[in-house]
């Protein structure tokens, strides 16, 4: 099986430096270092500081990017699709309602196999209107045919942005990089960045396989597909997205060689000898590590599986990584209203269903609309898992809403 997990730091070949920067500033810096041909974006909290900082790079002549000011996110993604089809390396960024307004273009971008890289700063969808973090925006886009890479920290967000460019161009698919609104986007954090030249060398010159502006070899883009062809097009997209899993691993391994930072499909934290575990993604994985370290000191054998790649969903690898456990909690920062629980819970549970050996599983929704998720909530989850693993309680059928007021 392919290596799936985050390993200890390898030796970095490239130099770089350590910075004190917000997650959004790190993302803008990565975009500057990538120096895309076209960026079309519209500002929205909490993504705004990315476009602000990137616009500064453009205004200061530090990038060669054609920066397209648009009047909405619908136009932003439309402009990205046009530019990408023309043969340009294209990036954009958004949040929440902005992503929602891109909806109809999202599936067109993936169906046209356009390697657009979009940073989405996770923010709750309205309503009620809210500017704070949850994953309802990008989870809502999970069936749109985009690769989705979640980031726990500013470091991961910076690294994922650079990795995403190569993944998109190798897979011929759009890639969405996610980090948590305000928690990661606006907190000043310590992380390591590469030198501009090393990023340039890593992403290389973009040579599109198909380009509308290649007049020597005219091709058709985005045609109408009748029932005789539509289905096969969708099959091709499924095959392509499935294949993106190995591409993510390959590009991440290449990136580890220059950065010293290794990333897998997911990170296993103190999981190998655990008998209970929490599955989580985004910044709450950090708080979960903190709580696990404390619980381990008291002898509780708890671990964590932090998802990095959510689309394509690495079901077999996750099932294998969790099979030795007695009980697993899956924490979702978004709800799938009307379903059994949140989207991550549903996927993990489905991934385990046909396994001969599988843990008991319980689903949680937490932190909607930026509700703070402190160690106390994660401690509650561990207490629940101990009861389930000890046979004192059966897993609850209904999803548990953590930290909600009665």
């Amino acid at each position: 099986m392919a290596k799936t997990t985050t390993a200890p730091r390898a030796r970095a070949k490239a130099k770089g430096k350590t910075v004190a920067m917000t997650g959004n500033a790190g993302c803008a810096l990565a975009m500057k270092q990538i120096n895309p041909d076209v960026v079309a974006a519209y500002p929205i909290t909490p993504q705004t500081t990315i476009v602000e900082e990137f616009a500064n790079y453009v205004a200061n002549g530090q990038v060669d990017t054609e920066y397209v000011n648009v009047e909405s996110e619908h136009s932003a993604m439309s402009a990205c699709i046009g530019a990408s089809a023309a043969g340009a390396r294209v990036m954009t960024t958004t949040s929440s309602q902005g992503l929602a307004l891109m909806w109809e273009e999202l599936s067109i971008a993936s169906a046209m196999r356009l390697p657009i890289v979009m940073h989405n700063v996770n923010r709750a969808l309205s309503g009620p209107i809210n500017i704070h973090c949850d994953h309802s925006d990008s989870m809502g886009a999970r069936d749109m045919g985009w690769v989705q890479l979640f980031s726990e920290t500013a470091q991961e967000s910076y690294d994922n942005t650079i990795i995403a460019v190569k993944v998109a161009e190798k897979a011929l698919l759009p890639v969405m990089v996610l980090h948590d609104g305000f928690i990661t986007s606006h907190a000043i954090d310590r992380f390591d960045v590469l030198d501009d030249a090393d990023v340039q060398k890593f992403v290389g010159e973009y040579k599109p396989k198909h380009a509308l502006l290649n007049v020597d070899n005219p091709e058709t883009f985005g045609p109408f597909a009748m029932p005789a062809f539509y289905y096969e097009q969708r099959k091709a997209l499924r095959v392509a997205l499935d294949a993106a899993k190995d591409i993510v691993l390959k590009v991440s391994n290449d990136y580890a060689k220059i950065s010293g930072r290794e990333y897998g499909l997911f990170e296993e934290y103190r999981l190998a000898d655990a008998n209970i575990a929490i599955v989580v993604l985004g910044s709450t994985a950090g708080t979960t590590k903190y709580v696990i370290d404390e619980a381990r000191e008291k002898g509780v054998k708890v671990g964590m599986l932090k998802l990095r790649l959510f689309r394509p969903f690495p079901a077999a690898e996750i099932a294998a990584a969790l099979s030795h456990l007695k009980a697993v909690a899956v924490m979702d920062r978004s709800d799938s209203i009307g379903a059994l629980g949140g989207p991550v819970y549903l996927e993990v549970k489905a991934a385990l269903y046909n396994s001969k050996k599988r843990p008991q599983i319980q689903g949680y929704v937490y932190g909607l609309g930026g509700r703070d998720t402190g160690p106390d909530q994660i401690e509650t989850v561990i207490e629940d898992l101990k009861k389930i693993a000890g046979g004192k309680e059966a897993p609850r059928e209904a999803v548990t809403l953590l930290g909600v007021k009665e």
Partner: protein
Amino acid sequence: MGEGKLTEIRWHARGGQGAVTAAKLLAETALAQGNYFQAFPEYGPERMGAPIQAFTRISTEPIHIRSSVTNPNIVVVLDPTLLNTVDVTAGMQTDGILIVNTDDEPAEIRKMLRLKGRKIYTVNATRIAQETIGRPIPNTPMMGALVRATGMMPIENLADYVRSSFGKKFAAEIIEGNVKAVERAYAEVKAE
């Protein structure tokens, strides 16, 4: 700060007093010391004059926790009028440190807040800022008081950092004013 120990700081201020800048500056100073840190404001309906909070975490080890600071080791109050309206000592550690920008003595603040235990420091940072920088922005002098109260670094390191960090953006007299503000607050802060 002990080896690997996490120090959590909560800043109380009014919008426009520079609490976010102070939390950021402290984080950058921590980087210069080779430490790990997080600095983040509480984002709400912030506007000039409204009560705001900001947070800084500092450790010699990587920091994983990402939730808000609820049990701070150190509380810094940039505006004394907040003492009547905001529960600035909420959740504070029993061995915590409270630093207030005020002309009052620490004993008076203790009486007013009915605070038991913990250490209280006071300094008139607004006056120091007015006299050194020429503007009543208390954030940099409060950094000097914080360094004195915690011993987190030699004051020379903070002064050096202010010089190198502000050097990119401000005129020499403003930079030296800020350095003087830091040094004066460090010298003038009173403890109880």
